[in-house]
């Protein structure tokens, strides 16, 4: 998937819509025997690897599943604490799946508001009057494209650096927003968007953009 996620931020900086379409990330599942040669730590309600990087399991990866059942934060599916469970030699051998933790919705909210503030700072720093604000943020693994409408709503798309045609995708998302979110009589302005038609049409637009756009090696 070349387009990773779409965020819609309202005038006040609050996230009103978010859509992810990640490719499955590198995850490693391995069977361990007691004692565990990785050091695990509880951080931010998640169990993370603090030391002992090996074989695809890196520092910062979270425990995603134990013995095939997904882990819920710091508790297993049965309600036991993960660290306690793994400290007990009677539970071994155990199969643990590690991987990069996904962002929770609170974290996404926070990141969206932070981006909103950075955007505002960016427009003010401009030496010329009437700057458009941050349009693109480029890194080696992704590009963040942002389009702010004249009314203050921001559409943010994170995509593969080689993906082309994101500008027209942003305009298309604006049209879809004006058609399916704003014309829905039950939708109040500036509130989170919970419109099925909006979701459906957005996914369709993303698919079209992906097929049309990537010009990278091997495509």
């Amino acid at each position, binding site marked *: 998937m070349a387009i990773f996620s779409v965020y819609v931020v309202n005038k006040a900086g609050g996230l009103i819509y978010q859509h992810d379409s990640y490719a499955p990330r590198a995850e490693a599942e391995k069977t361990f025997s007691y004692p565990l040669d990785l050091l695990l730590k509880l951080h931010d309600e998640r169990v993370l690897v603090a030391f002992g990087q090996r074989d695809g399991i890196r520092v910062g990866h979270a425990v995603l599943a134990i013995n095939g059942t997904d882990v819920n934060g710091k508790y297993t599916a049965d309600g036991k604490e993960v660290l306690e469970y793994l400290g007990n030699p009677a539970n071994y051998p155990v199969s643990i799946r590690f991987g990069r933790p996904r962002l929770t919705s609170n974290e996404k909210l926070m990141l969206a508001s932070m981006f909103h503030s950075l955007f505002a700072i960016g427009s003010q720093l401009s030496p010329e*009057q*009437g700057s*458009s604000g941050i349009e693109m943020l480029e890194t080696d693994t992704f590009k963040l494209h942002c389009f702010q*409408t*004249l*009314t203050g*709503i921001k559409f943010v798309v994170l995509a593969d650096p080689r993906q082309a045609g994101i*500008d*027209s995708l942003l*305009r298309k998302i*604006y*049209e879809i*927003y*004006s*058609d399916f979110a*704003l*014309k829905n009589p039950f939708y109040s*302005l500036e509130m989170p968007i919970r419109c099925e038609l909006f979701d459906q049409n957005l996914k369709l637009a993303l698919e079209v953009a992906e097929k049309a756009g990537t010009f990278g090696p091997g495509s």
Partner: protein
Amino acid sequence: MSRPVPRRPEYHKINRDLLVLTYGALVAQLCKDYEKDEDVNKYLDKMGYGIGTRLVEDFLARSCVRRCHSYSEITHIIAEMNVLFPLPPTCPVTGRDCVDAPAFATAPFIHIFQASSHKNQPQVLLILLQSQQVAFKMYLGVTPSVTCNNSSKNEFSLILDKNPLSEFVEELPAGRSSLCYCNLLCGIIRGALEMVHLAVDVMFLQDRLKGDSVTEIGITFLKQPEKKKYRRRK
């Protein structure tokens, strides 16, 4: 940066009569619900405000307007848009014109200069109203003419020779002489402009239904209150 490719809007057109008759039914119902004309006018304005706040996004999304930095650029865009949105086709069944489905009045084109320099203000506002002409054409199929009313250049009028919304209205009902039949339009203009940070006062100056020769909508741009600058803490 390359210019955005202008594209034809892909949205439904509906029969104009349906729209006009629905609006008439709406006003008739409001008249039944409220005895006073002022109340009806007020509610029409309120409804229009709600429509305007949403319609402006539709207009901006479909009209490919971008931030303009010069007078000539703006007029160029407006001219381009006039080419892109030709007059609506006529319906083969009734022979009447079709209008666009998304709510039925204007969404002004906005944001030319961000109210930055006062001396540009008059030009800005004139352009703003020229773009309202485009929007009128886009949504209602008629183009009003723009005039400037006073020397300080913050009062303008849109003059409509024929008002499509009151096509089937012969005359205002007895006892409803101060009813502004198309007050929805005023609300829409006000709502749309407010979404792009321009405070306006909109009212009907002349109304064909009340015996005047044309329908005139007056728009007064109110001065923006100065934003407070951040104060340093002592």
